[in-house]
């Protein structure tokens, strides 16, 4: 209990919270300048998300893939890798899940859905592992290779959908078979048909597993050591290259699983896409808001998802252009990153607190 209290008064809790508040205020100022009423706008935003079960369910649906791509980025970060390729891994995972979902029809439900999920994770992981391998074996900077793999992933996804899975006359794949779906139909019906699915639960489990793996296991210890100081890790007998590939693989698995959720839980099919959905890039922001910690990522995804999903309500009810939410999110990340600014603003409060502590 005491621990919990300490948690709330720690800098790592207070600073992000203040940063969020400051980001919201800044967004409000921008709205005022544009001639909009920020109170009304934020009101509409939060009403949209929390006003009824349907929209709440949909907001959760919005958060779920963000959790996964956020975890993916955070995981690689812990190994000292900058995985900007979440986007491509997400797409490849999505495609693998669609493929299994469509082609392996006839499997019983307890096999089909898990198999499709595993395929998504596996191929997302392999996609990322390419970048990991190129870095480990050839010293290719993972930032460039992942950027390239994002594009290749997009076209590969389209290629597979169009060549193997196309629904005739349409620009999308045929539906996955019922047995591969991870929709929670009963819950969905309870929540006004919002597209809630099992993926959300899996995402939460993944965050916990991430935490345990990274801080409680031998392998996590290795990955962190490699992330902080590859030289010392090598000296201590760890396989640096193997850990780089492994970290990328796991990172990609998380992103790929996120992609699989979208197909198996939300859409039940995959369209031919003209551009990538952006969930991978948003995941970077989510991870940054969450300070690359799995539980932080959960909160980051809740925040990011609430803001983006709610922005539709904002523009619907208060006529505020939804783009403003990008400014708000940008500002929040800015204040979280530039903690110096927050500290500076909090200075008066801080010195007071210090004094209290001394007493």
């Amino acid at each position: 209990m005491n621990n919990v209290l300490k948690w709330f008064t720690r800098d790592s809790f207070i600073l992000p919270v203040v940063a969020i508040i400051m980001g919201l205020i800044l967004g409000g100022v921008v709205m005022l300048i544009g001639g909009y009423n920020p109170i009304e706008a934020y009101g509409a935003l939060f009403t949209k998300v929390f006003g009824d079960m349907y929209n709440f369910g949909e907001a959760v649906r919005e958060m779920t893939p963000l959790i996964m791509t956020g975890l993916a980025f955070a995981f690689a970060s812990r190994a000292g890798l900058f995985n900007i390729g979440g986007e491509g891994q997400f797409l490849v995972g999505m495609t693998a899940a669609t493929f299994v979902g469509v082609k392996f029809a006839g499997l019983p439900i307890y096999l089909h859905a898990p198999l499709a999920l595993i395929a998504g994770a596996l191929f997302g992981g392999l996609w990322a592992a390419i970048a990991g391998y190129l870095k480990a074996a050839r010293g290719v900077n993972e930032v460039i290779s992942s950027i390239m793999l994002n594009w290749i992933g997009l076209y590969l996804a389209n290629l597979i959908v169009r060549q193997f899975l196309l629904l005739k006359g349409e620009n999308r794949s045929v539906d996955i078979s019922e047995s591969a779906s991870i929709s929670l139909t009963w819950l969905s019906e309870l929540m006004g048909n919002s597209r809630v699915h099992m993926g959300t639960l899996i995402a939460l489990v993944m965050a916990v597993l991430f935490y345990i793996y990274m801080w409680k296991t031998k392998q996590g210890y290795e990955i962190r050591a490699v992330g902080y100081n590859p030289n010392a890790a090598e000296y201590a007998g760890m396989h640096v290259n193997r850990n780089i590939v492994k970290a990328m693989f796991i990172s990609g698995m998380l992103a790929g699983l996120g992609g699989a959720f979208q197909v198996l839980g939300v859409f039940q099919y995959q369209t031919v896409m003209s551009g990538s959905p952006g969930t991978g890039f948003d995941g970077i922001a989510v991870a940054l808001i969450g300070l690359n910690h799995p539980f932080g990522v959960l909160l980051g995804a809740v925040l990011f998802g609430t803001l983006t999903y709610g922005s539709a309500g904002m523009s619907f009810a208060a006529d505020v252009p939804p783009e403003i939410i990008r400014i708000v999110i940008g500002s929040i990340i800015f204040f979280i990153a530039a903690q110096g600014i927050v500290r500076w603003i909090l200075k008066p409060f801080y010195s007071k607190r210090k004094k209290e502590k001394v007493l």
Partner: protein
Amino acid sequence: MDLLTIGQIINTTLVFATALIFASLGGIFSEKSGVTNLGLEGFMVFGAFAAGIGAHYAQEAGMGGTTSAWMGVLLAIVLGVMVSLIHAVASITFKADQIISGIVINFLAAGSTLYLVKLLFEGSGDSPLVQGFSKFDVPLLKDIPLLGEAFFKNVYPTTYLAILFVFLTYYIMFKTPFGLRLRSVGEHPSAADTVGVKVLRYRYIGVMISGALAAIGGAAITLTTTGTFSHNTVSGQGYIAIAAMIFGKWNPIGAFGAAVFFGFSQAIRNYVQLFEWSQSIPQEIIFMLPYLLTIIVLVAAVGRSSAPSALGEAYDPGKR
């Protein structure tokens, strides 16, 4: 393939490469000073936006096509520098993580430019069409076989400007005191500090030049390619510019080469479609080509990383 076609491919390549050249040079200025710049994309977006509205209002004010286009470039530079200060303040003064700060720029760019366009143009999602720069031929030189077609016919002033900036950047970086100091600040800030080079000041300047150049790159897209600014005017080219900078090993000539390579691999994806045999391969494979090619070249041609040693680290005189 005849000489004419080759010349034309080179010409198209250069048009594609122009924005990338500017932005990757911008990246070099920032990163050579030790500040990671993942915000190139954002700077380009701001530049493209400023060029769109700048040229529009200049045209409204009665200026001719080219003059108004230059006004657009000017506004892009101003806005690029202003926005770069956000990155500078956060990452240099307040020692924020430079990667995060760059990503913040991208978020702000995506949000605020579109918001502003909507405010300025009655809810429209893009800025009004402007004339932009026109292509021109260089007399006499244009008749040289191959070279004429490639470099002196149907060219935009921005392409020449970009090439000029490559050499200018090289000169500044490697021949002037300013360049020496800028590089020293990115390699070993405390060494620079102890000989009286103002580390933070040089980093600010590096980031500001970066903002200006990347913004010119964005402006070049609006003023030569799209004619308007909308949310997808830049669409990821800032990231490609980062790749070009890394690929070119933070050297202006190298980055130029890499940008041209990216431009080329984009250009050929259209040319490939002209061939009969291309009809039998799925389009996606052709679209993948530039990116696959990049990875292959990267794998074949890697060497020691030549990133500035202090890249990404905030300078803290007290830290050892």
